[in-house]
């Protein structure tokens, strides 16, 4: 017997027509020079929001990543306001460093592991409330307003990239709300990306780290990340699962 699929009905929570109407109003600038004298200027309707033609991704050069460097993890913690509790079982898993050792060749490698922002995310498939979702530009997020803390997504994620907030929190960052009873994970610093920036980990890796991380649009053939992916061999972690992650590794 074929079970009915959960979550097949995709309801767009936002009335697009109304939004565009409101935005056209917001783009108009009104300057009152004197009573009765008003200048109105209409700005161009800039396309706001996540562009479905874009797919944000990361490329991590494992050869450049050093095991004694923690710059990306520290930057993420500072940027998003999380910190380790000292208990690895309940610690936030936004990003962590993993050291690999190949016993046959003796090769030691180190790499950062975080949400891989899959094209077909298992966490989204299993979420019973629709809280786990993928943005049009490929960033996978948790809608904490609808997350009920069931933690199915934590079970479903093959990368162990999600974690649960067990204790009440205060002093969260305004751009990264997080609270007890909800699941959280790497957001690819969506607040920075929306403003044209790059994730905090990538920035820190370039400045205080070893320049092992590259952020960019996988769908743009002109972007550096797409050109590097087209030039050099890269791999996806657990490629056998066919999830097509947005985070790719070279020299792994």
């Amino acid at each position, binding site marked *: 017997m074929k079970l009915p699929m959960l979550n097949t009905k995709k309801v767009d929570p936002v009335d697009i027509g109304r939004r565009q109407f409101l935005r056209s109003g917001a783009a108009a600038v009104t300057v009152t020079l004197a009573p009765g004298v008003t200048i109105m200027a209409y700005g161009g309707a800039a396309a706001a929001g996540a562009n479905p033609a874009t797919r944000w991704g990361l490329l991590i050069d494992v050869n450049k990543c050093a095991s004694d460097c923690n710059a990306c993890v520290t930057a993420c913690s500072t940027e998003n306001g999380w910190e380790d509790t000292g208990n690895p079982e309940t610690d936030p898993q936004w990003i962590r460093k993993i050291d690999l050792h190949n016993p046959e060749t003796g090769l030691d490698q180190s790499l950062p592991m975080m949400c891989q922002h899959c094209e077909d995310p298992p966490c989204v498939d299993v979420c019973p409330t629709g809280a786990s979702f993928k943005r049009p530009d490929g960033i996978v997020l948790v809608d904490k307003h609808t997350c009920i803390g069931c933690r199915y997504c934590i079970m479903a994620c093959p990368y162990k990239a999600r974690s649960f907030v067990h204790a009440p929190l205060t002093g969260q960052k*305004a751009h990264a709300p997080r609270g007890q009873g909800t699941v959280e994970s790497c957001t690819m610093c969506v607040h920075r990306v929306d403003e044209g920036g790059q994730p905090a980990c990538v920035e820190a890796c370039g400045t205080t780290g070893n320049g092992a991380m590259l952020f960019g649009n996988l769908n743009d053939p002109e972007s550096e990340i797409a050109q590097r992916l087209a030039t050099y061999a890269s791999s996806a972690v657990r490629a056998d699962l066919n999830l097509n992650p947005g985070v790719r590794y070279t020299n792994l």
Partner: protein
Amino acid sequence: MRILVLIAILLAGGVSAQDLFPTVPQARFDLSTPHPDDIRINHIDYLRHDRDATMRLGDRDIEFSLKDCVDCHAVRGPDAGFVTVESEQHFCRACHEYAAVQIDCFQCHNSLPEVDLDQAGLISDDEMAALSAYLEGLN
């Protein structure tokens, strides 16, 4: 009708309309245009609509954000620092306690302003007056 009678009795008994309603701290800046009555009734719908636009669709060009509410309606406590939602002086609590409605927002969101708008280089009244005078001079 009964409410009107009740109000009439209360007013006759020396209770002013001021005493019937909570004292809501003023916004620090006159940035929002909608009428306060509209916001009082509909703020959760506006916030919910725009939060979905931002979070789900990545639209940051929104009209209503909780962050903006918190930034502009910040209240200073006795130590001159801004108060969190733990304090009874907090802007949101003034009405919510009166209406007996629990606020869940601040379980995840910060109830303190992210930037101190007093220090953020907003245009001052003097500068605004100078700018208006300049613009009028151009005509």
